[in-house]
């Protein structure tokens, strides 16, 4: 019983940090398939702060998409990874979108 109490206390102490939940990680196609050195890494992230289910910002995914597009205005973005996660908090939470990809500049 003492061991179990110690294990539970240790596990409880582990939970006192900032907690997160990753809901989904998706990776797009690699088309055209090029090596990492042929392109430039691009990244865009946006957040949505929510208090008890109420929020004013409902465009954060669109904003991440636009930011990623602006990082590679004339090229092709391939191998896009999209991560949707939430940072949990006290009666509030923050939804996060992280998009990363490889920007291939146009030839010529």
């Amino acid at each position: 019983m003492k061991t179990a109490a110690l294990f539970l206390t240790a596990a409880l102490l582990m939970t006192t940090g900032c907690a997160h939940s990753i809901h989904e990680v998706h990776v797009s196609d690699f088309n055209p398939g090029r090596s990492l050195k042929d392109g430039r890494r691009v990244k865009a992230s946006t957040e949505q702060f929510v208090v008890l289910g109420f929020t004013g910002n409902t465009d954060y995914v669109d904003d991440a998409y636009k930011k990623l597009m602006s990082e590679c205005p004339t090229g092709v973005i391939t191998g896009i990874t999209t991560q949707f996660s939430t940072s949990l908090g006290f009666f509030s939470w923050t939804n996060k979108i992280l998009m990363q990809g490889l920007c291939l500049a146009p030839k010529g």
Partner: protein
Amino acid sequence: MLATRVHPLKHHHMTRFHCLFIALAFMSGCASLHHAQLGQIDNRQGRSGKPFVILMSETGVSAEEIGQIARVTNSRAGNALGDAAAIIALFQMGPRTGNPVYSERYAERLLDRIYENCPSGQVTDLMSIREDRKYPVISGEIVKVTGLCLDANPVAQVNGVSK
């Protein structure tokens, strides 16, 4: 006096029972799928490549389960631990997939990991899976990506489609 002493063999059996119970509890891990998505499949003739699997995971901890287990003991310490777990759970509000983890960056290097497995970038059949493996109190929160790294040789043209 003699009646209150624990027989050494009985004590030994109790320890073995506890070990068996803990081992059984951890063997009862259940895997559950949260999300699966498949990308483009290049299934043209002449295609050959090397399949790869990328696994990225982090330990999830459930404060609620800690509280529930602690309360089952029905002791003062157990109830206090249960109360502490309930307070901590208040600081973990929000939508969840699996148990909360303490690093949100464990899947951030996915693009690098794909290129480590396939430096040419000729990747197809990509499947993204989000799943977890649940044990008492803790869980393994897993992001899994499988794919096929095509050989550098050009793929045979079929139906006018070329690489």
